[in-house]
């Protein structure tokens, strides 16, 4: 079992839909949780950052962390064609310096 699992997609939705992206993980020591957006042939762009459990909202994006279930989610409201990209979750514990990434979910928002 990989340390971080993520549905690779591709996921196709119509413009305006609510998108739910998810990651599960096995290491209960993870405390920092990030979501990145990566356009084709570009570097990942930090979207959301959460420490420990709870929800965080930023514009159309909401990140949720459920540490009891080892499950994190990113919700995108009113999705736009410009949201079409690969979404990567990443996480780390309090002691190590390396982030562990999921394989990414490819999202297509159709006009």
């Amino acid at each position: 079992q990989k340390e971080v699992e993520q549905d690779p997609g591709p996921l196709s939705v119509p413009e305006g839909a609510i998108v739910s992206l998810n990651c599960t993980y096995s290491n209960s020591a993870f405390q920092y949780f990030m979501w990145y957006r990566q356009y084709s042939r570009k570097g990942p762009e930090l979207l959301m950052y959460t420490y420990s459990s709870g929800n965080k909202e930023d514009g159309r994006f909401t990140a949720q962390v459920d540490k009891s279930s080892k499950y994190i989610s990113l919700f995108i409201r009113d999705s736009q064609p410009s949201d079409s990209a690969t979404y990567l979750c990443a996480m780390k514990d309090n002691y190590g310096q390396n982030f562990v990434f999921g394989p990414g979910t490819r999202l297509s928002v159709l006009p």
Partner: protein
Amino acid sequence: DAGVTQSPTHLIKTRGQQVTLRCSPKSGHDTVSWYQQALGQGPQFIFQYYEEEERQRGNFPDRFSGHQFPNYSSELNVNALLLGDSALYLCASSSRQLAGQQYFGPGTRLTVT
């Protein structure tokens, strides 16, 4: 405010050769991490530099080495290139005091033929 910059953008090398990739961190950041991203995969951690020392290393062979300079910029060196080293190499910078927030550069795409 310039973000993380990397050079070169693309590179083509032959098996057995050596390569050096460069990274300048975001202003105010003192920590640089390097990742390898194969096509269709998430980034894999290579190592991290802080205060000019390698602080942590992922599961990569000694052919991968690095350096951090006093101005916090960093280099990644790969010796004896293999075909499997073809990937996007990403540099990420962060501040030691803000451990969770890591920002990536655009990457260097390395092709080994």
